[in-house]
């Protein structure tokens, strides 16, 4: 039985797959069956990317279908709104306050329009880049978002479990920055108000 379905949406190059695989590893360590799958277009960079994570007991399929998602982690506003149809009515949205217009696009919705499309009451908005820079590097943006989704409490994960996975995966200065970014993301949700 599928327990939770997670959607991670953003633009190629933002580190979405890493978020998925770290969450997956932590959930697998809890004994769940996990499936983390990525969908991307042609290129390595700049395209629309979505990662599906599902976990539960028994068979778990790799696709999140319409109205199935429990959590949406959006690393960019347009991409977050693009994946809203996959969300349950009462699903939780954690979104990075960042708008990257697709190159060459003539009609780009305004930030406020995009924010207004997100479900009120169940949405958390944070400036992940700013927090990542505070942790030491803009590359750690994905770790901020990882910390944020853990803080929502929708997944059966403690922050310490995710930290454990990071400690196995990274070393030295890079680990320090990532752990710090994770914590800043976590705290900003725990302390901050919902959108």
């Amino acid at each position, binding site marked *: 039985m599928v327990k939770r379905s997670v959607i991670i949406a953003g633009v190629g190059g933002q580190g979405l797959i890493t978020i998925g695989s770290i969450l997956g590893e932590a959930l697998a360590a809890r004994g769940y069956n*996990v499936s983390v799958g990525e969908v991307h277009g042609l290129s390595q*960079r700049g395209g629309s990317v979505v990662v599906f994570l599902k976990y539960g007991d028994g068979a778990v399929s790799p696709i999140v279908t319409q109205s199935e998602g429990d959590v949406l982690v959006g690393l960019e506003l347009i991409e977050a709104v693009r994946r809203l149809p996959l969300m349950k009515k009462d699903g939780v949205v954690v979104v990075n306050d960042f708008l990257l217009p697709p*190159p060459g696009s003539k009609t780009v919705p305004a930030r406020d329009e995009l924010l207004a499309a997100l479900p009120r009451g169940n949405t958390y908005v944070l400036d992940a880049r700013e927090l990542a820079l505070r942790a030491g590097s803009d590359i750690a943006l994905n770790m901020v978002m990882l910390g944020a989704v853990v803080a929502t409490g929708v997944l059966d994960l403690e922050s310490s479990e995710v930290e454990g996975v990071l400690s196995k995966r990274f070393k030295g200065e890079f680990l320090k920055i990532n752990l710090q970014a994770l914590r800043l993301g976590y705290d900003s949700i725990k302390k901050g108000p919902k959108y």
Partner: protein
Amino acid sequence: MFARIGLILSLDLKIVAKAVISGGPGERRLLLGNEAIARGALEAGISAATAYPGTPSTEIVESLAEVARDYGIYVEWSTNEKVALEVGIGVSMMGLRALVAMKHVGLNVASDPLMSLGYTGVVGGLVIVSADDPNAHSSQNEQDNRIYGIHANIPVFEPSTVQEAKDLTRELYELSEKFRMSVILRTTTRLAHSRSPVVFGELVRHGRGASFHRDPERWALLPPYNLVKHREVLERLEELSKHLSDFKFNSVEEGEEDTAIVVSGVAYNYVKEALEELGVRLPVFKFASVFPLPRGLALKALSYKQVVVVEELEPVLEWQLKILAYDEGMPARIHGKDVLPRVGELNKEIVKAGISRILGIPYEAPPAPVPLVELPRRPPVLCPGCGHRSTYYAVKLAAQRAGVKPVYANDIGCYTLGFYPPYQMADFTWSMGSSIGIGLGIARFGSEPVIAFIGDSTFFHAGIPALINAVYNKTPLLVIVMDNGVTAMTGHQPHPGSGVGAMGEQRPTVRIEDIAKAVGVRFVETVDAYDVTAVRDSVQRALKFLKETGEPAVVISRRPCALLVLRERRRRGESFKRYTVVKEKCINCGICVDRFACPAIVRDTDGKVAILQDMCTGCGVCAAICPAKAIQPKEG
């Protein structure tokens, strides 16, 4: 002209995690489907792995390459899939186990030796992985390669989960040797690119002595022996079909209804979720062996009143079951593609809808979403600093100057993205090497020149014979080799021009210029892809040459992949000058943002252009093309 990228690649390989050998028996790790296949092959004790990279197959041999030295196996990126398979066949003739991996369309390239391999069979176990791409996420079609197995008389197996991908791979080596047949392991994108927990088995080092199994009557495919071999392989398939009913990867889950499900591959997971949500308990026959059918199990499934076959793409199981039912006089009503789509991939909802139709139970699709905001599309783009962009830009200028409207023949690789605005320089994209080949047919009868774009890796893969054809049959066509030094699109695998092998070792460099000259091209020029003027002028000269001589010309536009260069800089902690727009000088002509279209250049809220500093790689091409000299290196 430029430093090759060998060093970058070898450094790259040193830092990657060795996921497929870093755990002992019984350990549970999160693995990518492709990594699981690699692990399974190592648990089977393979001696060699070969492949040409292609999504979604790439990570199989990539993860084997990472551990090849430590582990003592041979891994190569082959020039193309045909060569990869041929190397694998040779290894098998030495009595050793080999893995050959490719994406679905790659098997088309390898199909020539494949067809005969069906007749000869193998000595050492040989598993051919065909990574299919239902939904054509990153492919030119969604062909179902299970049919290749039927066509070639080669058994086909399909895992349903990542764990099974590992276990089945290991098991298939035993089966391959027992029945002396190569086997196709068919995966799909959703399995190849899914991560799930996998319990490891024991790693086995092959420890076999390699010796050539001399058997000319078997290996030399000459007329008197071929019919004998054809008969033999059919007998072996029949034998295998009986054996497969006890094959542990084919399973039956009992149910309460008189309708049975037959399913293969990743669709098993959709079936399980769908049945649970529909609240019905149907018997589920999961076939890991797709061809031949496990005869006993298939008959058992056909003993139900109704059978619903759930499979992605073509009705491969359905056809076989219908034939079997007819032959055996079984009355079961067999459903499949009458209620499930033949196009695209399946998912839980599609399967739910199909099964509920057969069972006659109500099904309500999730409500259609109401778009709250109109969203722009986000097609993939050429990276900032990519040499392909400046090449396209320069070629367009050259065509304008020459007053011609070329047919732009394009090929498979990152540069295919030249299809999208503002370039729109891909009048067709077909298959590997076809820009030149199809271009030849167009050039033969066209009045405007044909400009064929092809990448370095693709040139080696399938471009050379077509180029030889252009010389031999004297066809005027301009080939622009967009050389960034690696197979970039699939994640930077080296090729014969990279000067480095799959395991990061130094290798001789095969020079594209030398090949072009050697096959008789009389116009061969190499230019810096960033030097717009140089590329433009070279292309203009080439077009003139085409017109005057009626012969083909080759321009090699070269720059190492910008992503790799950037990564290497980051690793070394090197700083570089980024560019910025001096707003007072900007005349807002839009050339940089609308026509050059680097993703790092955007229109600011004031309507003027600006450069996103995070994304700028400092290539400086935008500065060179700015007519107002408003783009300049940033101080400090």
